[in-house]
C-alpha cells in the first residue's frame, strides 16, 4: 500500500506573518490535469484591508531605505529562490503543466528578472530624474519617489515569471504591495511568500493574497489608503477592468490598465512597470548668499 499524502492547506502572507483567511475559507488547487495538489486560503475583503494596513505601516521604512539597501534585499530574494529551485520547479510544473526543462527555464527567467530589477534600485533616479536648467538663480532637481501602497493583480497564467515581473518593479522603487495571486495557479506565489519571509524583506512590504481577483480587487480599487493599482492580472476582462478603474478614481489612484491579453513575460520589460508607480518630485533651491 502506497503512503498516504500529507495534504497541505497553505495560508496568506500579511505583514510578514502567515495567517489563515479571516473568512475561514480555502479552496482546492488542482494541477493542469485536474489532480488535487493542495488547498489555498481564499482571501476575503477583511484580509485585503488587513494587507493594506500592513503595507501602509511598512511604507515609510521601506521607502526610506537607501536604494543600495533595497537592491541588496531584492538580490537576496533571488539568492533564496535559487536555494529553493526544486520546490519552484515543481510548483510551476503543477500550475502551468510544463515539462521539467521548461519549468526550469521559467524559474531561470524569474530569478534573472529579479536580479535585473534589483539593479535598478540605485539607477532609476539617475535615468528618469534630472536637473532642470531654469531661467533664474535656482538649483532645481526632479527625482522619482514611490507612490505608496500599490495593489497588484498578478497575472493569471504566468504563475511565477509573471508574478515576479509584477511585484519586483513595484517594490524596487520603494512602494509596498498588496498582491492578489493567480486564482487557479497560486502555489508559486505561496512559495514566493515563503522566500520573502526568509530573506531580508521587511514584513508588510509584500503581502500576498491567494483567491479571486474579481472578488478582492473591488475592495482594493476603492480603498482610500491605496495609492495605485496594477490591473495586468485581469487582462482581457474589460468589464471588470473598467469597473475597477472607475472605483480607483475615488482617490485618483494611479492605474496601470489591463492589457487585452496577458503579456509575453519573456521580453525585456522596459521601464514602464517602474515608472507607472513613481511620482516626480521637483525641488527648487535658491542660489545666493
Amino acid at each position, binding site marked *: 500500500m502506497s503512503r498516504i499524502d500529507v495534504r497541505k492547506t497553505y495560508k496568506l502572507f500579511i505583514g510578514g506573518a502567515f495567517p489563515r483567511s479571516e473568512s475561514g475559507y480555502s479552496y482546492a488547487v488542482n494541477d493542469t490535469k485536474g489532480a488535487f495538489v493542495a488547498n489555498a486560503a481564499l482571501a476575503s475583503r477583511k484580509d485585503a484591508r488587513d494587507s493594506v494596513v500592513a503595507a501602509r505601516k511598512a511604507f515609510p521604512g521601506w521607502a526610506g531605505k537607501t536604494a543600495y539597501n533595497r537592491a541588496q534585499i531584492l538580490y537576496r530574494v533571488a539568492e533564496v529562490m535559487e536555494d529553493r529551485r526544486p520546490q519552484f520547479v515543481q510548483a510551476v510544473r503543477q500550475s502551468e503543466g510544463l515539462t521539467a526543462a521548461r519549468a526550469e527555464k521559467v524559474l531561470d527567467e524569474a530569478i534573472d528578472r529579479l536580479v535585473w530589477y534589483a539593479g535598478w534600485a540605485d539607477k532609476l533616479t539617475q535615468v528618469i530624474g534630472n536637473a*532642470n536648467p531654469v*531661467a533664474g538663480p535656482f538649483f532645481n532637481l526632479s527625482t522619482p519617489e514611490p507612490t505608496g501602497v500599490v495593489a497588484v493583480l498578478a497575472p493569471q497564467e504566468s504563475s511565477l515569471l509573471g508574478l515576479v515581473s509584477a511585484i519586483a518593479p513595484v517594490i524596487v522603487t520603494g512602494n509596498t504591495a498588496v498582491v492578489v495571486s493567480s486564482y487557479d495557479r497560486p502555489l508559486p506565489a505561496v512559495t514566493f511568500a515563503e522566500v520573502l519571509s526568509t530573506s531580508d524583506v521587511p514584513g508588510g512590504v509584500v503581502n500576498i493574497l491567494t483567491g479571486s481577483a474579481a472578488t478582492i480587487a473591488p475592495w482594493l480599487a476603492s480603498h482610500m489608503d491605496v495609492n495605485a493599482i496594477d490591473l495586468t492580472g485581469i487582462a482581457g476582462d474589460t468589464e471588470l477592468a473598467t469597473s475597477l478603474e472607475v472605483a480607483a478614481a475615488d482617490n*485618483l489612484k494611479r492605474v496601470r490598465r489591463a492589457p487585452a491579453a496577458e503579456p509575453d513575460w519573456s521580453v525585456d520589460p522596459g521601464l514602464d512597470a517602474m515608472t507607472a508607480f513613481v511620482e516626480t518630485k521637483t525641488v*527648487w533651491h535658491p542660489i545666493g548668499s
Partner: protein
Amino acid sequence: MTFEYAPAPESRSIVDIKASYGLFINGEFVDGRGTSFKTISPSTEEVLSEIAEADEADVDLAVKAARRAHARVWGRMPGRERAKYLYRIARIIQERGRELAVLESIDNGKPIKESRDVDVPVAAAHFFYYAGWADKLEYAGYGDRSLGVAAQVIPWNFPLLMLAWKIAPALAAGNTVVLKPAETTPLTALLFAEICQQADLPPGVVNIITGAGATGQALVSHTDVDKVAFTGSTEVGKAIARAVAGTDKKVTLELGGKAANIVFDDAPIDQAVEGIVDGIFFNQGHVCCAGSRLLVQESVADDVLERLKRRMSTLRMGDPLDKNTDIGAINSGEQLKRIRELSEVGDAEGAERWEVACDLPTKGFWFPPTLFTGVTQAHRIAREEVFGPVLSVLTFRTPAEAVEKANNTPYGLSAGVWTDKGSLILKMASQLRAGVVWANTFNKFDPTSPFGGYKESGYGREGGRHGLEGYLRTPHESAR
C-alpha cells in the same frame, strides 16, 4: 509711513475685443450651435463679448478636424519643421505680449504686473522650450510616437499660461489638439487662435472650442480622442478619471492643492513673509499650488504674524490694469461666493479672522487679503481648497510635527520650506509628499521644471522633459 500712488493704468486701447466670437475649428472661426454666453470683466462686471458655445456636434467637428490634421499633416511632418511653427508662435506671443497681457487682465481680473511679468513671458517661454524638443524626441526617453488627438480643458486662473502648458508639449510631440478654455476667461485663447492663423499653422492642428462644463464633458468623452489633459478641480478630475475608464486614452490631471508653507524659527523672517504673501496672495490666491496653510514654528509665530499683517496692509488692491496693483479682482461671482462661504465656515468653526482694512470697489468681485489664526487641522479652511486670498495659520514645534501636519491632506501638489539650515531643507523636502517643493522661495515656475501632484492633486507632469511623457506612446506601451 504710507505712500500715496497716483493711478498708473495701462492703456486698454491696444486690445480690440470683438462683439462676438465663434469657435476656432480647422483654422477658421465658425458659429457654434449651442447657446452663446457672455464673458465679463470681473473688476467692473462690464460685458466684454458674446462667446459661442460648442455643442456635441461642434465638438465632433473639432475632433475630426484635429484627426485629419494629425493623419495628413502634423503627425507626418518632420520634427524640425514642427519646431519652426512652435518658434513662430513663441515669437508672436512675445511680439503681441502687451496686447495679451492687457486682454488677460481685463478678462481674468489679475493685476497687469502679473500678466505682463509672469503669464505672458512664461507662456512664450513654454513654446520656445518645447519647440526645441520637437526634433529631439528620441533623446527624451519616451519614444517618438505621437498619440494622435489631445483633448485639453483648462481653468480660468492662468488662461494663456495653462493653454501654453497644454498646447506646446502636445504639438512638439506631434499631436493635434482641441482645447477648451474656461467659460469665464475665453478671450486670450481666442486671440491665440488668431496667432495660429498669423503663424500659418496648418488648419486643424489647433482647435479652440468655447463653452462650459457640458462642452468639456463632450470633449473628454469623445471616442476619437487619444489623450485627455485637464487642469482644474479635483472633483472634475475624478469625474474625468471615471469617464475615461476602460478606454486607452492617456490622461494627465493637474488638480487642487492645499499646500503647507512651513516657516522654521531660524528662517530669514522678512524673506519668509514675502514668500508667504507671494504664496497665498499671488493671483488673488487663485493658484492650485498656493501656500494656503502657513505652518509656523511656535517660537516665532507671534513675530511672523505681526510682520505678515504689516506687510499685508501695504498690498494694493484695485484696478487690474493699474501697474501698482498687487491684488486684482476675484474671477467670478461664483468663486467669490465660495470664498465667502468657506470663510464664514472658518468663523463658525472658531478660527479668528483678520483681514486687511480697505475699501472694496462697488462694482466687480472683490475679497480682501485675509488670514485665519487659531486654525486646527480639523477645520474646513485647513482641509478644503478655498482658491482665494485666504490663509490658514497653524503652528508646530518640531520638524516631525511639521511634516505630519503638512502631509495630513488628500492633496499633494506643492509645499514650501523656510529655514537657514541646508540639511533641514533636504530632510523636509524628502519627507513632504508633494510634487513641487520650494525651499526659501515659493510659486516659481519654469518651462524646464516638471509640475504636478501626488495623491488627489492628480497625475502626470507638465513642463520639462517629463512633460513630454504624457504626449508620447512609449515603445513598451505600444507593445501592450
